[in-house]
């Protein structure tokens, strides 16, 4: 359906070199799927989306929709945005304040070359407004809508033109937390009902995990990893992805060898020697970077029943924070502070000894790309 190949987009700056906002971005989105561009602020998500929209002219690459090239540097093709028939929802919603709700939603039909007649426009607009739950407000001035309603209207306006592709740039970020949760479900429902191919931009990992069929994680203009939400979360490829999606423990160590019985690598770490999962990048005598999620660090006071293929350690509770439905603990193992998330029934006080179990399958050896840099 949508295929983006080797897309480069730059911004000219009055002084200094151009900003390389999107570099070598490549991905495919099958028909009817919900695809998310996820990454920290300034990583080039909006730029990529706007390049697909045609609002930004890339430096090179190919963009193809339904077998039609809308942009190709090698063939010199650039279809202007008003001929692409893509629906887009902007972060600010961009609701036209001088029009009513109806007029806003009717605009894409009215500026068409083969404009439908009045009755057809009315039917179409009302059915879209109905779909987003705004039909009772059709005659209201657009400025008199609440944030959530404006958001729905922006969506209705993008949908009324029956677009080939729906582009959404952080559509939920201006809403308050409760409304955001509600609209998240709404968005998902509408997308599924209409079966419309959707590209979604967000910096909120929760949103991305909840909504998407597939996620592309971006960093500094490049796509770092593409995959379904579960794979991105459970099997991050790099330190950056592991760090950006959820929280994780990073442990550095030296590779000591391959354990034939457990079929895992043995790595010396500040915690002691542990068994880790790797997809084949580890070398004997090399360095390893290991990620383990806090919820995969199991804690218990009772002694652990020994199994040689498990990682068993013991430490001292250093810090605990009660958060209602779970407790976060920091456990000192050797001289490393290991974060763990446990059930609130675990009541071990600070300073007491505790046993730690980490399933080697969850101890992932990943690529060290410097991780997430703090952005101002």
């Amino acid at each position: 359906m949508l295929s983006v190949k080797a897309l480069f987009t730059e911004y000219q700056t009055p002084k200094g070199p151009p900003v390389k906002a999107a570099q070598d971005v490549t991905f495919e989105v099958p028909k009817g799927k919900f695809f998310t561009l996820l990454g920290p602020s300034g990583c080039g998500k909006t730029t990529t989306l706007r390049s697909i929209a045609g609002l930004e002219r890339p430096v090179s690459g190919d963009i193809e929709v339904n077998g039609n090239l809308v942009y190709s540097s090698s063939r010199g093709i650039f279809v202007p945005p008003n001929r692409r028939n893509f629906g887009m929802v902007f972060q600010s919603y961009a609701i036209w304040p001088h029009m009513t709700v109806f007029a806003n939603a009717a605009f894409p039909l009215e500026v068409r070359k083969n404009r439908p007649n009045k009755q057809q426009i009315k039917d179409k607009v009302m059915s879209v407004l109905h779909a987003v739950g705004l039909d009772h407000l059709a005659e209201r001035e657009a400025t008199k809508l609440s944030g959530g309603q404006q958001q729905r209207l922006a969506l209705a306006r993008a949908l009324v033109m029956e677009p080939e592709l729906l582009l959404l740039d952080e559509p939920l970020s201006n809403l308050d937390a409760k409304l955001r949760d509600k609209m998240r479900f709404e968005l998902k429902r509408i997308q599924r009902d209409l079966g419309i191919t959707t590209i979604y931009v967000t910096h909120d990992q929760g949103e991305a995990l909840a909504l998407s069929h597939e996620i592309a994680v971006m960093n500094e203009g490049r796509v770092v990893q593409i995959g379904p939400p579960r794979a991105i979360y459970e099997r991050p490829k790099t330190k950056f992805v592991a760090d950006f999606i959820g929280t994780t423990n990073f442990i550095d160590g030296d590779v000591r060898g391959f354990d034939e019985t457990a079929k895992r690598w043995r790595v010396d770490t500040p915690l002691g020697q542990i068994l880790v999962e790797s997809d084949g990048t580890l070398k004997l005598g090399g360095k390893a970077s290991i990620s383990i999620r806090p919820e995969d660090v199991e804690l218990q006071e009772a002694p652990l029943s020994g199994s040689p293929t498990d990682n068993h350690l013991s430490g001292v509770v250093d810090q605990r924070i009660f958060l209602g439905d779970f407790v976060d603990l920091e456990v000192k193992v050797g001289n490393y502070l290991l974060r763990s998330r446990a059930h609130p029934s675990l009541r071990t006080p600070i300073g007491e000894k505790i046993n730690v179990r980490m399933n080697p399958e969850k101890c992932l050896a990943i690529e060290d790309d410097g991780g997430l840099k703090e952005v101002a």
Partner: protein
Amino acid sequence: MAVAGEMSGVRRGDAPATPRVSSEWVVTSGVVTFVAWLTLIPLGFLVWQSFMTPQTAARAQQFTLANYIEAYTSPETFSLFVNSVQFASGTAVFALVLGTLLAWMSERTNTPFKSVFYATSIIPLVVPGILFVVSWIMLASPKIGLFNLILRNLFDTDYTFFDVYSMSGMIVVDGLHYAPIAFLLMTAAFRSMDPSLEESALMSGASTLQIAWRITLRLAWPAVAASFLILFIRSIESFEVPALLGLPVGIQVFTSSIYDAIHRYPSNVGLASAYALTLLVITSGGIWFQARIGSQGNKYSTVTGKGFRPRVIDLGRWRYVTAAIFLLYALFAIAMPFFILVWSSLQRFYSVPSWAALKNVTLRSYQSIISYPNVSGAVWNSMVLSLSSATLVMLLTAVLAWIVLRTRIRGRWMLDNMASLPMVMPGLVLGLAIMICYLTVGGGIYGTIWILLIAYVTRFLPYGMRYNTTSMLQIHKELEESAAMSGASWLQSFWHIVLPLLKPGLLAGWIYVVVVSVRELSSSILLYSPGSEVVSVIIWELWQNGQYVELSAFGVMLIATLFVFTLVAQAIGRRYGIKET
């Protein structure tokens, strides 16, 4: 500490502050009195005079309604009104269409060379109105106008193609001169518009024209309406064009009638005042409407603050058309008028540009203007007046803006209105009011340079107020409060904290007031007397005497000086980290 305590007492405001004699109080009450004296008293005299018979040696003044009866019953008044409105709305529409088009081209399209748009299109603002009009007479008058002569030669007829002495001529000349104001206002409006409003129209499939017409222009509608009113007021007040182009062919508007009533013999100040008050009512109405639109405009305020990406529309081949429009504008509003002035200044007697006349090129007019009586005095007067009025205006309005925005003193809104009052007073009306005021209460000020200073300070008070309020709004109140907490007195914190922080606005406003003071004609023309002429009055006199070449030489030097002054002042401002506004 006492001051800090009192200031916070005043701020919280509910309990009446105990009036203590502090520097804050002295400065505040002094300023209030001064502003009232500047703006309210002359207005009072104007109203009073409009109900009085002329004073003659034989008879003292008497109460009368005759001025209003004469003003409103004479059949000419109706045509006066029609002319004024026709002229002002014509000018406003012409300037607005042109300015909006230029602003749209420069903000929203990929027209070539648009980076020089901004700089060049505001040049006409530096050129004194009277010089602009004179140069257009040289370009498009029926007899000596260059355009007519060229076209007559070309087509071998004696048809008059352009007649600058007509209503349409007046509208075009004044409109060209005011277009930069429309350009600046509309540029600001386009810049403050969230570009995603236009981008979403683009994504909806709309074409460039559909977006410009149905989205951009409609969104800018409040700005369009406000600009129209500003331009309408400016042109109904304008004096140079009606006096130079309208009067010779009997097209009278309010301003030229006021001037006429004073300068006829015997002069009829009462009638002039009646006209002036009528004009005042019209301009007040305009300002009132504009303020209303301004407050409604918030409804459309679309600034979202999140990463603006001004996107330009690719016009394709049409960009050569837009470039040509800009070039034509620059030609007619800047290049041709300046060229004809330079040409004329190089002649012995005015003659139309030709190869034959090129042989007579001489710098004699420059020599003769320098030694012309009164010229050096007028230059000195203008310099002193513009520098001191700009300084006074900016300091005074800094205190005013502070009082209005930062204190809870009761009735401070009145102060704001009082300082903005001169905005509705056309220069000629203000000049008249001040003239009556100081002829009556005297004090020996009438006939000296001081009366001009008073007029300038009063007239430009609203500009200073605007510059200072804008920048005062950006200074956080806590900066001052922390100065007070550090033990600074009010005067110390005003001098060391507020004024330095206001500097960018102060400098920009100061430059502006200097330039407009030098150009000022319509108040000065009523208030000068021998010995207190200013440069614009000299130009006026040269025109009346028919000394066109000397006038041109003087004009060329004046424009060059003003231009260099603006550039230098802005460069100095930039060096001290002051951004252009």
